[in-house]
Structures are given as structure tokens and as C-alpha cells.
């Protein structure tokens, strides 16, 4: 997994690349917690290059959603590959997260 950050409007755009699994989901959690400590609660997670996620990754997303909601921030997930989107659907996470097709669509909605 590779994580990179970018600032657009008042949002932090997070690009996730590769796999999020049980061996590295802690790294993602650490990075997100660092953002929260910086008071950055407006997050757009771009998953265009994410090609694997397991429950350990979903766990971190859900955790982030809870923290963002508690701080009245905003979390948007965009550009999910269909096979990843399927996992979100099955897990009932598609109704919990704001999900957008593309980064453009997400940035328009902000």
C-alpha cells in the first residue's frame, strides 16, 4: 500500500494505492489519526488505485467515519473499483459512507 496526500479546497485528498490488508491496515490507521490530531476532519479518500481490501481495511474506514462524524467533519470515498465496491455493498458500508464515482464529482459536492 502507498498513501499520499494532497490539499484541495478545505479537504485533504488521500490517494490509496495497492492493497490494504491485515499486514498494513495499521499504517493507514496511524496516518489517519495523524490527520485528526492536526484537526483535519474533511477527508476525500480516492481509491482509484486501490485493488484489494479485506475486513481489516474496512475496519479502519469505519473507525475514520466515526471520528469524522463525532467532529462534524466530512468523509467522502471516491473512485472505488467495481470489485472493491462490491465488498462495500456486501458489508453494508455503501449506505454508511458518502461514495462518489470520481474525484471531480466528489469535489463538486463539497
Amino acid at each position, binding site marked *: 500500500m502507498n498513501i499520499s496526500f494532497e490539499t484541495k479546497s478545505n479537504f485533504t485528498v488521500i490517494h490509496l494505492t495497492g492493497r490494504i490488508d*491485515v499486514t498494513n491496515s495499521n499504517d493507514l490507521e496511524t496516518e489517519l489519526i495523524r490527520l485528526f490530531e492536526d484537526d483535519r476532519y474533511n477527508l476525500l479518500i480516492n481509491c482509484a488505485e486501490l485493488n*484489494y481490501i479485506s475486513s*481489516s481495511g474496512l475496519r479502519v474506514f469505519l473507525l475514520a*467515519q466515526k471520528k469524522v462524524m463525532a467532529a462534524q467533519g466530512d468523509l467522502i470515498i471516491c473512485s472505488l473499483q467495481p*470489485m472493491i465496491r462490491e465488498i462495500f455493498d456486501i458489508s453494508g458500508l455503501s449506505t454508511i459512507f458518502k461514495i462518489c464515482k470520481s474525484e471531480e464529482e466528489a469535489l463538486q459536492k463539497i
Partner: protein
Amino acid sequence: MEAKGKIQFVLDNKVDELSLLSAKVETMADLWDFSDSQTMNLNLVLEEAISNILFYAFDDDSEQKIYLILEYDDETLSVEIMDSGKPFDPTRQGPPDITLPAEERSIGGLGIFLINKLMDHVEYCRKENMNMLTLKKRIK
């Protein structure tokens, strides 16, 4: 050309083995002409099942072996996972409530649920002091 067959793996009870395994599984899935999505789902199911063994099956941190068999034949993928940890029957685990709003949802408990959702058939038995989990999925 048509390929079918059966591969046995013996893994140590270490998290690092999961990364090695996922590469080998991709190799097999490639051989069997699985789609990217079928391959990801297979790796996901294996990760969920094996990480549960790594995290919960053994009380001490002794070295243990986990046995995995992957078989693809007659358009059916079969997975068999065996461990000598404490008895645990995942088919008796109730599903999490995935209709709850974010505030009330538990952040864990999706692993066994995903295994059940992604596979057609999940069977557990305890045999000779081993947990034996059999998973099947029709592919294609």
C-alpha cells in the same frame, strides 16, 4: 487449453505468511483464468480465515502449522483450511447487524460474515484435534 488441479500449502502461524500466500494465490488464479474480482475475493476469504487462526486459535505464541488446500475442478473452487488451535466453529457465529448506522456499528466482526457472503458453501468440522473449514464456490 484447460487447467485444473490442487495445491497444498503449509504455512507457519506468522502474519508475514499472508503476504507470501497472496502472491502464490494470484499465481494460481492466473493459471485457472480467474478474473481480478474472483482472485481478490479468494484472497480476501483466505486472509479472513487464516488471520482469525493467527489471532485467536492459539493461546500461547508457540510455532504452529496451518494447512491449506486449493483445488479447482469442474468449475468449482474448493478451499480447505486446517489448524490445530482451540475448537472454533465459524458457521455458528451470528452475522453482525450491517443495517446499523455508523455510530452504532461495531468496527470489527466482518471477517466471517464476508467469508459466508463470498462463498457458496461453508462447512466446519472438528477432526482429530484439528479445525477443518471447507469452503466452496462455483466459478464461471
